[in-house]
């Protein structure tokens, strides 16, 4: 049987391909017919990061004929702990340039299409159109809702995977008889509630596990083997090595795929989620614009000059204790109160004393300032660039992370 309509009519396997795919060809249920379907199939990967890495490599190796990848990023040292498409020497290169070469190296028969741009409501449908299957390996909520909505509107399966620290989720959305992401999560979480990998950390091997499971689901959809994850949500916890599964069903009240849909066109997903979709986004969380609280920025150079001049400046570090262990400004007298504890421990702070608030790059510290100002704190500075900026520009003996 087949879950999606992929025709292998007229597709032939060369002698070289027969040899390459022999372990699939002798596998009952896949066989020559399944391998031809793989060759005839096209898959679009959203994101070439932790999930996208194993996806691209295994789908290429498996013989998927056409692989598209959407990602605008460049390779960074912090990617190497889990994004196995990239080598140390690739740092600084565009991800897609490296990914395309890597895929071609694994399987020269694969056609690789690269989309070196952020996925947006304007380009999503156009980019999705030629592909049989969409695979969601993105790293943020606005893009997840966008991928879901565009997949449903175009009637394409969305092989969903998402990770957090030690845990992962897997499902297949957008099938005619199954739910979509919005059936499960009609509303995005409030900004700040769910940390990203950059904020919360992630076990390096976790996207390897979840990404390969997504690849398995895609291959099953193409070849018609087994039972796809439609109507099921897998919850994987690497710390306990536990697999939990929940039976799902379409939500008849879903605004996208329910009985009376109200979302019929792609929307502005950054506004919907109240957060930017990517680092280069110009989206500014509405909370900031609406609030009259202006966060004063102190440049790294200014802080250095003032410390060098012997000024007794208080530096409040609002990161988590395990981040403090990686790097800190304790030699300049900084002290730690994690962002989530600041209001609880507000009594330890003197609202009249000038204070520089600092985190990793400057985002959380700005949030803390917005929390403190209404409590009478009027002499706060946000360290522009955070400790990573300090470590890059001022004191290179401090590691960045």
């Amino acid at each position, binding site marked *: 049987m087949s879950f999606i309509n992929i025709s292998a009519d007229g597709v032939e396997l060369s002698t070289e391909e027969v040899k390459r795919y022999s372990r699939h060809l002798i596998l009952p249920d896949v066989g020559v017919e399944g391998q031809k379907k793989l060759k005839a199939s096209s898959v679009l990967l959203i994101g070439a990061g932790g999930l996208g890495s194993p996806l691209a490599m295994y789908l290429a190796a498996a013989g998927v004929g056409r692989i598209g990848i959407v990602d605008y990023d460049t390779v960074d040292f912090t990617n190497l702990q889990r994004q196995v498409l990239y080598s140390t020497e690739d740092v600084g290169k565009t991800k897609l340039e490296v990914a395309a070469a890597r895929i071609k190296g694994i399987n020269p028969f694969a056609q690789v299409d690269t989309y070196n741009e952020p996925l947006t409501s304007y380009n999503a449908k156009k980019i999705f159109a030629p592909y049989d299957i969409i695979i969601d390996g993105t790293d943020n909520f606005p893009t997840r809702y966008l991928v879901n909505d565009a997949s449903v509107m175009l009637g394409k399966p969305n092989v969903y995977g998402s990770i957090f620290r030690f845990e992962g989720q897997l499902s297949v959305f957008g099938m005619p008889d199954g739910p979509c992401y919005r059936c*499960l999560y009609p509303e995005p979480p*409030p900004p700040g509630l769910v940390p990203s*990998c950059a904020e919360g950390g992630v076990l390096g091997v976790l996207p390897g596990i979840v990404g390969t499971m997504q690849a398995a689901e895609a291959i099953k959809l193409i070849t018609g083997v087994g039972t796809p994850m439609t109507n099921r949500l897998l919850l994987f*916890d690497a710390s306990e090595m536990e697999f939990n599964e929940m039976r799902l069903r379409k939500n008849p009240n879903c605004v996208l795929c329910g009985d009376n849909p109200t979302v019929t066109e792609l929307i502005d997903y950054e506004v919907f989620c109240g957060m930017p979709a990517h680092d280069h986004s110009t989206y500014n969380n509405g909370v900031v614009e609406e609030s009259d609280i202006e966060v004063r920025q102190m440049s790294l150079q200014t802080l250095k000059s003032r410390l060098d001049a012997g000024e007794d400046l208080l530096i409040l570090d609002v990161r988590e204790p395990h981040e403090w262990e990686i790097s800190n400004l304790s030699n300049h007298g900084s002290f730690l109160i994690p962002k989530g504890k600041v209001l609880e421990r507000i009594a330890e702070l003197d609202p009249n004393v000038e204070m520089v608030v600092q985190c990793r790059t400057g985002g959380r510290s700005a949030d803390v300032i917005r929390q403190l100002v209404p409590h009478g704190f009027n002499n706060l500075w946000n360290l522009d660039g955070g400790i990573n900026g300090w470590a890059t520009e001022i004191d290179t003996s401090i590691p960045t992370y």
Partner: protein
Amino acid sequence: MKIKLFATLKETAGSGSIEMDVQETMTVAALVEQIGRQFPALKPGLTVSVVSVNRDFADMSTLVGAADEVAFFPPVSGG
């Protein structure tokens, strides 16, 4: 009643499960209110989570009793 918590909820609670004293059948919405009174920090995450009752997709109107297994799966976005 044993309530299983995942991802951010597990981190906030410091444990993968919490015990709630549930005497009579109630809706998931009422259960969320009760948990929120005892553990206020969990409330925001609970209200945006997928809920399962005995491993079946449930919603705020689903009825639960002391013998049911209730789990909350908050959204996660990493990739």
